């Protein structure tokens, strides 16, 4: 709340929106720190019992311990692998289908209607089916992630390809680019910004799908660690698991963003930075 009143008091900061300066960043750090202190205080004084929510210092100590005995790195490794494999599969399918549908009328007629129907299915409603089909090992978890990832990438890449400026396609034609060169130099780079939007959406879904899939049944990974902790009322481990999920999400998002910045350097918006 303090930041918004600051904004109103300084109209200049409102006009020059894109670049928050350091003092403002500092001001924005203040309220989370206060919250953290209140949380710690509530924990230490016993107002907030460990059974409901462990205090920050307990969580930190648990983190150190779980890293030292290898539990946390191993759980992260397992979950990361599921996310990556599922993501890679889903991305390959989503982008691949979008290329086929985007680059030919036949492909569009054949693929787009079923894709539009499938996308209406609720992702997590599929879990029972996936368990029936794939058992309870790694496969259903990877499949859920892949399924969730494929659609945003398909939809955005397809829209990106179809949205490529027809005038640029004409340029390709008069420059006598063949079909392959037209796709490579005009169509795919033209679709890239939209594909990257899809990539960010699909990463968000990938993590969410993984978390849900790991809740249901797992004998390893972050979800297992969290579920196991719940049975022993170890809220410190539950919160730690959540923090790790959040961190992983932030890291992958940052990776995509930096890839975006490099790949879209030609855009005016990026040029300004």
């Amino acid at each position, binding site marked *: 709340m303090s930041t918004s009143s600051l904004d109103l008091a300084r109209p200049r900061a409102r006009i020059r929106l894109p670049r928050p300066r350091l003092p403002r960043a500092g001001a924005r750090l203040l309220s989370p720190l206060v919250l953290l202190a209140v949380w710690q205080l509530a924990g230490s004084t016993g107002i907030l019992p460990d059974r409901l929510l462990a205090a920050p210092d307990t969580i930190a100590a648990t983190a150190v311990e779980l890293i030292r005995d290898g539990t946390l790195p191993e759980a992260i490794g397992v979950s990361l692998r599921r996310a990556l494999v599922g993501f890679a599969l889903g991305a390959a399918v989503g982008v691949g289908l979008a290329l086929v549908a985007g680059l030919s009328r036949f492909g569009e007629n054949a693929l787009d209607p079923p894709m539009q129907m499938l996308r209406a299915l609720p992702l997590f409603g599929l879990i029972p089916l996936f368990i029936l089909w794939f058992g309870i090992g790694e496969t259903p978890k990877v499949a859920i992630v892949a399924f969730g990832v494929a659609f945003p990438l398909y939809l955005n890449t397809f829209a990106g390809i179809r949205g490529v400026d027809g*005038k*640029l396609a*004409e*340029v*390709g*034609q*008069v*420059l*006598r*680019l063949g079909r392959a*060169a037209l796709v490579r*130099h*005009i169509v795919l*780079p*033209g679709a*890239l910004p939209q594909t990257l939007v899809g990539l960010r959406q699909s990463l968000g879904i990938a993590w969410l799908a993984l978390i849900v899939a790991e809740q249901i049944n797992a004998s390893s990974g972050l979800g297992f660690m969290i579920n196991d902790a719940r049975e022993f009322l170890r809220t410190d481990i539950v919160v730690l698991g959540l923090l790790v999920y959040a961190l992983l999400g932030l890291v992958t998002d940052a990776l995509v963003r930096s890839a975006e910045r490099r790949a879209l*350097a*030609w*855009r*005016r918006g990026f*040029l300004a930075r």
Partner: protein
Amino acid sequence: MATRLSGPVTRVEGLTRRFGDRTVLDGVDLEIRRGEFVALLGRSGSGKSTLLRALAGLDSGTGGRLAVEGTVAVAFQEPRLVPWKRVAANVALGLDVPDPAAAARAALAEVGLADHGRAWPLTLSGGEAQRASLARALVRRPDLLLLDEPFSALDALTRITIHRLVLELWARHRPGILLVTHDVDEALLLADRVLVLADGRITHDSRVDVARPRHRDHPELLALRAALLTALGVTPEETP
């Protein structure tokens, strides 16, 4: 090649184009010889760009007959640079020569953009983008060069330089040129032949047999100028 040197590089007979129930081109007849420099005048919306698109092979909705001999290069009315390719890569795009990069560099130097090869198209000024687009067309050494108002965003000084450059390149490689312009004086300074497109047809077609470099005060040009303005529906006294 030598035998075809003065044959037509394009021949158009009875070309028509309708958009809905609007007839934009209504029986255009046009022949451009190899090495001939033709300027096309016409009011805004008279169908000049439509005719050029047809000649470039970009319009499949035309009626009548249209034949083009050899290769065509186009500089569009808007520069249409591919935004995700640096300027030099735009010029070299699809270029079928042993060293496209060197050719692109040379072409950019010719239009005064030697330092902008690594720039992104969206950072160019309007005139710079237009020159880059011109370089992209010129570098192809086409048999027919279609230029759709390629000088409209240039300042007067750059325009003189680029006029000279186009004349030089034309003298050296002798492509047929169809130059669309709004500027009667520009047409008279550059072209062998000046056409006026009005009501969907070529309503005026005159030869300009004045040696280059030309000066706009040349009596023959002044006479032609008056005739062209009349053909365009402007009384000469009205213009400054």
